[in-house]
């Protein structure tokens, strides 16, 4: 859409932020445009005469920038190409760089001609909450038709499709004082706090500091605002105890003064990213004191069609001229209820922009600024309002506004005068930015001078200063800043040096503001006219009144029924106006209406920043055993086990998983296999009471275990359910080594500590986890002994000298080792442990020694099948947190002698002691080749169709290469009584029948492992 490019002639405006000597090119919706270094996308678009920047959410109304910073709700654009595309950025905060590409959103086929705009024509059918009242019939059409339509229409920008190529990082920092906001109040606070030697962080969301003081038309301590700011920032940067951050948004305030900040490190300059800078950095700050100097946000006024492109906030208009030398148009009308907008009139005038009248709601208002405006020959119409606008190009541009006389209190507008203009500057007053104040539950109170909310009840942990605290003149802002900064020093011992003196700024006395929440339109009542309150979500005054009428009275209900304040700007410009309108509609006062909850973040933050460095390979640690590289080199097929990666199997050549696993099992059964068992938990337990302690921890006895011998033990939680099992060895009179499951290692170590520290404080026992110290391997199979003997060592591996369930220490192939004769495979098996850094060396030696015996490695799946053939349980497979030792046939391991051990009493709670609980049994399918699926359920009686009553489920199921048939274990109601019965498992494909058998399928008497 055309529109005259408009930068004010050089010299007329200060152009504080742009550098005309550094022109840039960027593109918007594919059209190449030019701007200057320092421009934001919004200022550059306006300078190019591009006013139309976006479409609204619901009615797809044409929209342009209304504000100049974080408050912007209309000018949302997508920036960047391909994987770097980011939707929903505020054009008012996007700094342009050479080659930046931006696109408009929520329009089709294009921004100027948007079919979505049709919804505006039927808008009368879409009042707030209309969808709750319809689309209910027929039921099926909701999912099939209505919802898809709604979904397509909804949403703003589009997401990138590929993985984000940029990097993000986090940093934790602690400080005495965190100042949020680098306007004059924040700068003053930071200076005062820094002077006392405190550790201070100052963060401002903008590229440059000073906030809106440059727009205040005041001097600060005798200096022009910008000079004062420059001096302060220089001082802070020079200080050793201060850290100054620009482009950094203080996003959220949490419990105990934990504060999140997002620093946009590289968004404004792709060059930095190329040099390895993270795109964004998440700051996690713990501050003793948070000083909130976040300023104030101007509010619009609700009049008919107040959303038209060219209607902007007065300070924004002033800012575009003063900072970027950009005027949004050529002829401006000012509409205000306060003095501040007069500054805009003056600024426009002096920049050569025609100022049509200042329309001032107040019947009479006198102040220095007003005189100044009058003096500049600007016409002022008091006791009047702008009651509507005349537009062309489908509302995309303004031709004139309607001005009408106004007496406060709602009444109909009788007459109107037409004044031609192409843009309008509006000011309805200012709302302190109290968001951070409220994030963690801070209270706010209504100030009937500002007609807005200001922070209440300051304390040492959080203070508000300046405009954020409702102080609208520079002098007071600076004074308050200094005072707050000094206050933080009070507590400290650090010596205080002299702090900059009182602010001496000629305080401008302002004429009081006259609140106006709603301007009635001309003619009939307001039918059909849209008085926007929440622009982005298209929430109008009529919607708010409707919500009240229908009984959604609480402001929280009104919010949710109308979506007021729920857009990406979170109601920065609309919440208070909404309350004003609700107050008028209900006859209540604004404080009586209350306000909705402020929640983090202050402005939206990317998920990438939150994930930070923890993505891709760094997402979660991968724990590696000492043999990890060997596994990789030998083509291991890994599976995650907790944080470990363990070889599931080692496929050779074209082998698939299944055949690799079969081969590995047969190797162990017929020759000898080698397993990396390093992940097994290992805990040293020592002390005069160690035996007694283990007796209380395990269900079975350990105090009676002979030195050098090993015993299998079970652990229960206090509910009486199995949580871990493993073999514990007695190293000495008062010294034990406990093995836990891999998953249990850390959990059980903590479990032991907890009981020692919190319940059995008198027991003299020390516990030290040593899992990581040892590499541990199982050498298992008929030829295991031969392999051990082949490795030169100093231990006698004969059956007599080294019986099952015993251990020895010595050297093997020159490596110091502990050898345990324990077996999880049911084969003759030696578990060899050596210090982790020797692990790889010993591993290679064993493979070398085993070669002549056909030794080969095996993985976790082979291990699981080997143990299943033996009917050994796996915690987590046969157990699921609801299983007792009796349920899985381990009653023999539950001591009857001991009066107490963890979980003992619960075993006799009625339901745990009940008969007919699910019990572990073995299963033989009728067809030996048929393998029952994991988790398959048996039924009491097969019915023609569900529901059928289930009586238990398969916990482990495999094809056993050893027995050359399928085997399964299952937990079945009253299973032990069902030996020999045939159970039916209805699967999708049909019913599988299986006979209940003893779960020990192989080598029942244990000849092999004992041999």
């Amino acid at each position, binding site marked *: 859409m055309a529109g005259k490019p408009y930068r004010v002639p050089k010299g007329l405006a200060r152009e504080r932020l742009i550098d005309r000597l550094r022109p840039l090119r960027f593109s918007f919706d594919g059209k190449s445009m030019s701007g200057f270094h320092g421009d934001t996308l919004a200022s550059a678009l306006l300078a190019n005469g591009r006013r139309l920047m976006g479409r609204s959410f619901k009615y797809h109304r044409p929209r342009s920038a209304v504000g100049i910073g974080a408050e912007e709700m209309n000018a949302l654009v997508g920036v960047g190409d391909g994987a*770097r595309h*980011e*939707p*929903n950025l505020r054009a008012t905060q996007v700094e342009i760089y050479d080659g930046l590409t931006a696109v408009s959103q929520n329009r089709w086929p294009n921004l100027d001609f948007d079919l979505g705009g049709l919804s505006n024509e039927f808008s*009368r059918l879409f*009042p707030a909450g209309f969808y*709750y*009242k319809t689309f209910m*019939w027929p*039921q099926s059409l*909701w*999912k099939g038709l209505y919802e898809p339509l709604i979904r397509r229409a*909804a*949403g*703003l*920008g589009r*997401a990138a499709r590929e*993985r*984000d190529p940029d990097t993000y990082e986090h940093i934790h920092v602690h400080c005495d004082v965190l100042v949020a906001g680098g306007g004059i109040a924040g700068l003053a606070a930071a200076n005062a706090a820094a002077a006392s030697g405190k550790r201070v962080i100052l963060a401002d969301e903008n590229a440059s500091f000073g906030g809106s003081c440059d727009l205040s038309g005041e001097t600060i301590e005798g200096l022009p605002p910008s000079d004062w700011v420059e001096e302060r920032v220089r001082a802070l940067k020079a200080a050793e105890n201060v850290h100054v951050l620009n482009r950094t948004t203080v996003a*959220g305030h*949490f*419990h105990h003064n934990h504060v999140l900040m997002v620093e946009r490190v590289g968004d404004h300059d792709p060059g930095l990213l190329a040099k390895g800078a993270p795109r964004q950095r998440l700051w996690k700050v713990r501050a003793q004191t948070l000083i909130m100097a976040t300023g104030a946000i101007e509010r619009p006024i609700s009049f008919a069609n107040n959303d038209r492109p060219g209607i902007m906030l007065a300070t924004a208009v002033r800012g575009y001229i003063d900072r970027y030398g950009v005027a949004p148009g050529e002829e401006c009308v000012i509409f205000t209820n306060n003095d501040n907008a007069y500054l805009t009139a003056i600024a426009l005038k002096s920049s050569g922009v025609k100022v049509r009248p200042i329309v001032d709601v107040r019947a009479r208002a006198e102040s220095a600024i007003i005189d100044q405006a009058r003096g500049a020959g600007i016409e002022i119409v008091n006791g009047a309002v702008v009651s509507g606008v005349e537009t062309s190009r489908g509302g995309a541009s303004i031709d004139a506004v309607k001005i009408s006389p106004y007496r406060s209190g709602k009444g109909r507008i009788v007459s109107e005068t037409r004044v031609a203009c192409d843009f309008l500057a509006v000011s309805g007053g200012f709302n302190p930015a109290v968001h951070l104040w409220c994030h963690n*539950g801070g209270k706010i109170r209504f100030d009937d001078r500002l007609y807005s909310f200001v922070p209440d009840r300051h304390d040492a942990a959080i203070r508000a200063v300046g405009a954020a605290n409702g102080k609208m003149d520079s002098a007071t802002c600076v004074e308050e800043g200094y005072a707050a900064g000094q206050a933080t020093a009070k507590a400290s011992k650090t010596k205080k040096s002299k702090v900059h003196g009182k602010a001496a700024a000629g305080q401008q006395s302002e004429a009081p503001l006259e609140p106006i929440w709603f301007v009635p339109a001309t003619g009939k009542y307001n039918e059909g006219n849209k008085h926007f309150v929440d622009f982005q979500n298209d929430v109008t005054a009529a919607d708010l009144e409707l919500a009240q*009428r*229908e*009984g*959604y009275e*609480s402001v929280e*209900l009104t919010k*949710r*029924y109308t979506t007021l304040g729920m857009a*990406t700007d*979170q109601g920065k410009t609309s919440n208070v106006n909404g309350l004003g309108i609700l107050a008028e509609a209900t006859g209540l006062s604004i404080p009586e209406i209350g306000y909705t*909850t402020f*929640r983090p973040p202050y402005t*939206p*933050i*990317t*998920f990438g920043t*939150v*994930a*930070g460095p923890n*993505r*891709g390979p760094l*997402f979660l640690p991968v724990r590696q055993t000492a043999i990890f590289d060997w596994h990789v080199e030998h083509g291991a097929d890994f599976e*995650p086990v907790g944080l470990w990666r363990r070889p599931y199997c080692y496929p050779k050549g074209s082998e698939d998983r299944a055949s690799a696993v079969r081969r590995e099992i047969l190797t162990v059964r017929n020759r000898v296999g080698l397993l990396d068992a390093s992940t097994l938990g290992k805990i040293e337990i020592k002390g005069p009471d160690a035996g007694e302690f283990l007796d209380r921890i395990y269900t079975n006895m350990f105090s009676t275990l002979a030195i050098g011998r090993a015993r299998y033990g079970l652990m229960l939680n206090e*509910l009486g359910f199995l949580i871990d099992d493993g073999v514990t060895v007695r190293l000495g009179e008062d010294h034990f080594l406990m093995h836990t499951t891999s998953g249990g290692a850390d959990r059980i170590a903590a479990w032991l500590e907890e009981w020692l520290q919190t319940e059995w404080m008198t027991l003299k026992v020390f516990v030290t986890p040593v899992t990581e110290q040892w590499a541990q391997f199982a050498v298992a199979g008929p030829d295991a002994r031969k392999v051990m003997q082949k490795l030169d060592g100093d231990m006698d591996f004969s059956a007599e000298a080294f019986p099952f369930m015993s251990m020895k220490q010595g050297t093997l192939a020159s490596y110091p080792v502990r050898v345990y004769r324990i077996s999880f495979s049911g084969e003759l098996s030696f578990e060899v442990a050596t210090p982790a850094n020797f692990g790889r060396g010993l591993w290679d030696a064993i493979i070398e020694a085993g070669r002549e015996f056909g030794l080969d490695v095996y993985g976790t799946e082979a291990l699981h099948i080997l143990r299943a053939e033996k009917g050994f349980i796996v915690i987590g*497979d046969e157990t*699921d*947190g609801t299983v007792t030792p009796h349920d899985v046939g381990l009653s023999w391991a539950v001591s009857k002698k001991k009066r107490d051990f963890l979980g003992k009493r*619960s075993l006799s709670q*009625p*339901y*745990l002691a009940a008969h007919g609980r699910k019990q572990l049994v073995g299963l033989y399918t009728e067809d030996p080749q048929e393998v029952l699926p994991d*988790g398959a*359920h048996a*039924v009491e009686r097969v019915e023609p169709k569900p*529901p059928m009553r*289930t009586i238990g489920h398969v916990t482990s199921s495999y094809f056993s290469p050893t027995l050359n048939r399928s085997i399964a274990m299952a937990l079945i109601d009253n299973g032990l009584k069902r030996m020999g019965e045939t159970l039916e498992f*209805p699967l999708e494909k049909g019913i599988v029948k299986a006979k209940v058998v003893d779960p020990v399928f192989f080598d029942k008497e244990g000849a092999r492992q004992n041999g």
Partner: protein
Amino acid sequence: MMTRYSIFSIARNAMNYHKDWDRAWRSPQPKPSYDAVIIGGGGHGLATAYYLAKEHKMNNIALLEKGWLGGGNTGRNTTVIRSNYLQDASIAIYELSRSLYEGLSREVNYNVMFSPRGLIMLCQTEHEFRALKRTSHANRLAGLDCRMITPEEVKQLVPLINTDAKARYPILGAYYQPRGGTARHDAVAWGYARAADGRGVDIIQNCEVTGIRREGSQVTGLETSKGFINTRKVGVVVAGHTSVIMQMAGVRMPIESVCLQALVSEPIKPVIDCVIMANTVHGYISQSDKGELVIGGGADPYNNYSQRGSFPALEHTITALVETFPFISRLKTLRLWGGIVDMTGDRSPIISKTDVVGLYVNCGWGTGGFKSIPGSGFVFADTIANGRPHKIAEPFALGRFAEGRLIDESVSAAVAH
């Protein structure tokens, strides 16, 4: 008789600019006495009141809400609806609930936007894979329409998901409930409220219960911020505040209140059509009809009534989801919040009579009770009306804790959202 909502009533009202809609519900002052009083204006309380009025013709009843309707967890939950639980007792109540959701909009003449868009539970470890296979067999035999699907099918349903087999937690498969989905949380509360009001229930907001009066073991009334109310039947349905209210009657509960948080992204054009749960990494995500990604994860560990949580829980969830859905890295969250959830010892709910005659409690839905609102309301109303547990409610009685008759869903490796 209230106006029926329909496209026609909207068109009619459009004529005069929607100025004639009547109230969705009255705002009455409490009467001195009621046949029964429900404490708590969340989904469960409102549904209970509705079914008491509709199914049991109890019309002289009131519902007391200390704040605004749905202002508790119902108004702040991520709206995942499914019934594919493991234990029979759970399946029964959650499936009853899900099936009631299917017809709820018309039942209450209020569009609650129940959207059975399909729910996917990812299997990202062998252990989770086994656990969900087990659940799938149990569910099939219970008659639920659910099935295991392959990574390829997952990719078809959610093209933007990361199915890289070398991922830290590769997607080995998934458990799919085609008619699981979401509903509009506020609308569920409002719909029940409007329908209950239509049947004469007094819904009283801004009315906080401050005391429970009893004579001997019999409840006789409630002290409230709006005065004393006589009643001999009280249904306590206050989620996170259960312990606080029950303490007023001297009843101790097996509950801890902790903060569960959620967040939404800025609205974007459709990218995710189903609900996806990645339980191994504690994250789940769906996209609302407005276009925001609605995201939730695990709860904070410590007792908390502040409705404000700690960031690590959210950071953990977001980190996991960026890994599972790399495309969200450059999307932004616009708001995060917390709710106070009532966690029981076995993570399953309590629907029960108590030792105090006339005092009934429905709680412990913890992180997963939005999906159960219609079913829970239905059986709780029946329990209160008849003074004995409804069949489906029986297993959820308080007594189970002393018997050790736990209903442990953590078994199915799924967090209960």
